[in-house]
């Protein structure tokens, strides 16, 4: 194929462009720091997160720098080991929501007609449930399996992704370069994933960052309410629930995980904000 296509309306912002945004740089540093801490923390854990070592809500000491929790486990070790579940479950649910939502949104926006109506109708039904309520409903009926929690959290996010992708696709699908691609005999798959998808990636990145912070909130909230990861697992959300009665006695067991969860949410939000600003700047520059 020798003919070249017309210029696309808004090429996706390069990572370098995004990283020029102070918000994005700060967000990336914070998010990466929390992710690295969560994934590599267990290597630095001084004790097993389940070992019963100290007294109930024992004060910090040399052997336990953040003191002991509600049954005498080392808080520092549980903090080191407790981030992995939050990070993989949050990231997993966002990726899953993107994979299924993008496909459905592209399909609905590109084909329109009855496919569009069916997809939109189902998404409206799903959208009627607030995220946390939907997840709570399913998990309370079917159990607390981490895979199930990730799946249901993703399901709660899918309508948002579908709506976004469908709307963007409807805007892109009538552009000249898409028409040209069709005339030149590009396959439907190529048009969808090579021509349309790259044009909506900036908006998707922004939405992904926002979803990541929502996912962190939902998963932490779920664990706090006792419907997420189950004891004796070390998990930041669960730790807040387990140690909240000791807030006035030994606050580290609840406050450190809360701070880490807040940082993760803040970082992903800043990253999304940075991406949005970079995208707007690009659009302004034409």
């Amino acid at each position: 194929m020798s003919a070249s296509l017309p210029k696309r309306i808004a090429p996706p912002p390069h990572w370098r462009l995004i990283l020029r945004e102070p918000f994005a740089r700060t967000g990336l540093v914070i998010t990466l720091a929390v992710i690295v801490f969560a994934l590599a923390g267990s290597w630095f854990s001084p004790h097993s997160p389940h070992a019963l070592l100290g007294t109930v809500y024992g004060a910090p000491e040399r052997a336990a720098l953040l003191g002991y929790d509600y049954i005498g486990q080392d808080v520092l070790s549980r903090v080191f080991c407790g981030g992995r579940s939050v990070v993989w479950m949050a990231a997993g649910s966002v990726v899953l929501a993107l994979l299924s939502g993008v496909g459905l949104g592209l399909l609905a926006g590109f084909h329109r007609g009855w496919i569009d109506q069916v997809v939109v109708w189902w998404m409206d039904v799903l959208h009627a449930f607030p995220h946390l309520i939907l997840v709570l409903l399913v998990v309370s009926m079917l159990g607390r399996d981490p895979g199930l929690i990730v799946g249901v959290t993703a399901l709660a996010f899918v309508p948002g992704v579908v709506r976004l992708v469908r709307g963007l696709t409807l805007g892109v699908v009538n552009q000249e370069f898409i028409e040209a691609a069709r005339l030149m005999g590009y396959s439907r798959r190529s048009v969808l994933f090579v021509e349309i998808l790259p044009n909506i990636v900036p908006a998707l990145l922004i939405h992904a960052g926002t979803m990541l912070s929502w996912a962190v909130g939902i998963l932490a909230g779920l664990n706090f309410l006792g419907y997420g990861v189950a004891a004796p697992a070390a998990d930041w959300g669960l730790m807040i629930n387990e140690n909240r009665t000791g807030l006035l006695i030994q606050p580290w067991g609840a406050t450190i995980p809360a701070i880490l969860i807040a940082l993760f949410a803040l970082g992903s939000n800043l990253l999304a904000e940075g991406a949005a600003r970079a995208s707007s700047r690009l659009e302004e520059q034409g």
Partner: protein
Amino acid sequence: MGSLLPGCGEQSPKSGGASSATALSSSADEKPRRGGRLRLGIIGGDQAGNLDAHKPFNTGSIIRGFALYSKLWEWNDDMLPKLTLAEFAEPNADASQWTIRLKKGLEFHHGKTVTADDVVFSILRLTDPGLASPFSYLVNAVDREGIAKIDEFTVRIAFKKGIGFSPLPSLWVNFGGIVPTDYHPVTNPVGAGPFKYKDFRPGERSLFVRHENYFLNGQPYPDELEILDFKDQTSRFAALVSGQIHLANAVSPDQIALFRDNPRARLLVSPTYAWNGFYLNTAKKPFDDIRVRQAFRLLVDRGELVKRVFNGEGRIANDLYAAHDPTFNHDIPQRLHDPDGARRLLREAGVGKLSLELVTNAAGSNAAVVFAEQARRFDIDLHIRQVDEATYNGSEKADWAISTGGSLGLPYLAAAVSIDGPLAVANRSNFYDARFHDLIHQALKEPDVERQKTIVHEAQRIQHERGSLLIWGFANALDGVSPLVGIQAERSHFPTWRFDRLWLREDTA
């Protein structure tokens, strides 16, 4: 204050928290003062709360029932039933019939005299299948057709199939409020308790005023009683310290440190026989093998569980409930932590690496976590599954191989017929031992405590040698108390619910 039971040799009631035992309990010569509004803060009150004497939905409703309703018996300071509205209650020779006579001159809140008709109405209401009280199982042995009014103040009660039922008082005392025949839990919540209903907002607060014709002369002492609902222990503690409430019942053991050297909120410690343990289901592998059940009873470190789950506020138990009962067999030696013995028994039973699901409700989750960690040292992997209360008490409960459990410190026969005896509705561990069941039936027919002792001693030996309960500890009841309140520690679960005994040392806003 109730005296110590002979042979118990255990903790005395105390106050002031773990670090000090200062004089919080009122002394015997301190004269109670009348007046004021006593405020109790409770946890767990929700919109589903009610005032029903026989079908309370939650702990808050049960506590409100202590204010509104009096019973034929009440728990004494040692958690044994004593006569209150009844002046006489005796079984016949084989305990197949009880004759109960009311005191004369008792009055309900609305002025009606308490009569035999009200007693009959109350037991029929509690056991009414239409009401579907979750607590009717306690007296499900009562034959509804066999309840007879003998005279204006006397009632005779018989039991299904003519069985003996000597523990009637210790079972009926729970949720056995005597209410008038025109009773309605919403439009006419009337009883003969120390306080009358004035206002009730579910999930928020309830207000009661003194019943001037309460059967104990001069009591209760406060003019009013207010019960406030809190969602968590921390906010309730803040309310206690700030003087918003005077009492906080059932303080969580991990909050003990807050009470140390705190002049505005002291800890009342009442050693009880509320047991905590695990059900080992004899109908499920591997617990169908006595050796595995005994191995679990040896591998558990009871001292560590008491230290961590009760924060030290409790005592270890010996796989038997009701250690306060006069019939209890104190000659059975305390089972100790014996890792080698446990490993030997597991080996003999052919059990290698073991992986089991340990089911718990919220109340048992801390014990489950600690026990799972202990079991890990024996290559036993206990996966904890925490379920909600409805599931925990639902139809699956007898299908779980191992689950957490616990109960109030009921007297022996009352506990046996509720937990693992022949009439037990909730026999989670599916314990069926022919000799044990035979002994319990014998004891149920035997009203004489001394003769009951011999029977119960053998039954307890069976439970200890081949039973299905791993009972690791008895918890102390912990209550937060303002120094303004006159109160006594006891060996029951209810020192802060004794609304007819509590008083305020001075008026507060």
